[in-house]
């Protein structure tokens, strides 16, 4: 049996609402994001510039003090090595230092730490439409990167894992889709 005028209207209304209602409001959000972002960035850059110009002498003073402190720390750290080592040159096998969680002791990580494993996980999130710096339309893609380094101490069999998350945003021109 064919639906009546009212039934047809109800069917179409509920179908179209089910399809489109969930997308309402997204254009405003995308527009606001696109319009306010460059403005925020511009305001931030300007405020940093003004701040740097105003505090330049103080920044220079603190920067030179910081550099001097870093130099002293480095000297204090390497000087015992120079005095203790017969050839006064750090071992070439020494690549990094790491402290196992909870142990409180400092260990020198050398290539002996076999099973060195590095994983990079990339996650892409489509954040809607955006404009490239050239003003072309594209998709705003947020790239989340998780770089994980795992290694095991062959003597103590302790496992170490360090994860460094980072986030980047890019706009892919629509022609490249």
């Amino acid at each position, binding site marked *: *049996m*064919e*639906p*009546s*005028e009212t*039934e*047809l*209207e109800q*069917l*179409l*209304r509920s*179908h*179209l*609402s*089910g*399809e*489109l209602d*969930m*997308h*309402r*409001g*997204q*254009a*405003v959000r*995308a*527009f*606001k994001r*696109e*319009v*306010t972002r460059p403005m925020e960035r511009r305001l931030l850059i300007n405020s940093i510039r003004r701040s740097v110009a105003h505090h330049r002498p103080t920044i220079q003073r603190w920067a030179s003090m910081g550099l001097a402190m870093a130099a002293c720390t480095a000297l204090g750290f390497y000087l015992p090595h120079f005095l203790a080592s017969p050839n006064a040159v750090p071992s070439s096998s020494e690549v990094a230092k790491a402290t196992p969680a909870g142990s409180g002791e400092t260990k020198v990580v050398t290539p002996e730490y076999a099973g060195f494993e590095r994983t990079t996980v990339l996650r892409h999130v489509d954040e*809607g*439409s955006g*404009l490239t710096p050239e*003003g072309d*339309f594209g998709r705003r893609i947020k790239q989340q990167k998780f770089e994980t380094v795992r290694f095991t101490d062959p003597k103590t069999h302790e496992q170490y894992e360090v994860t460094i998350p980072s986030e980047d945003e890019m706009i892919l021109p*629509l*022609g490249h*889709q």
Partner: protein
Amino acid sequence: MDLSVEELVERAKLHDSEAFAALIERFEGIALSIAYAQSHNAADARDLVQECFMRAWQRLDTLDDPSRFGHWLGRMVRNLAIDWRRRKRPGPLDMSIDVPGGPQAAPPIERAEQKGKIDQALAALDEQSRACVTLRYYEGLSSKQIGELLDLTPAAVDMRLSRARTMLREKLAGLATEK
């Protein structure tokens, strides 16, 4: 403060982004309806609408008569949809497919069948008629308003709606009693 479309357009032309955001809120449903009629996919319609409003914001200077904003926007959506169809490459996966166990719960079988039937029935209409149907049944616009958006006379809109209704009733026979 409830400003008219003309006032909002004039303000938006002076780079008032809040005024343009208000215009988007007013015209989003209309733009979605037209884009959906053209693309026949809600997710694509959403993307088209976002892109269309960005483009409209950039090209607002070219709109001479602020009272014709809706008509201007409607034409822009249709042109964008045509471009989009040209540049769209067939992909291996249509993201709008309901995947069982996906983030959205799959609809009950009867509802999915009903949705499929209505989709098919709407797909059988020509684009102009589909746009008339979505604007009438989703946005509740009059024939005159639809005609202004789609470059049609009110009589032509009525004729298309009448034909579309006849066709849809035939295609959807049995659905209303199944409910």
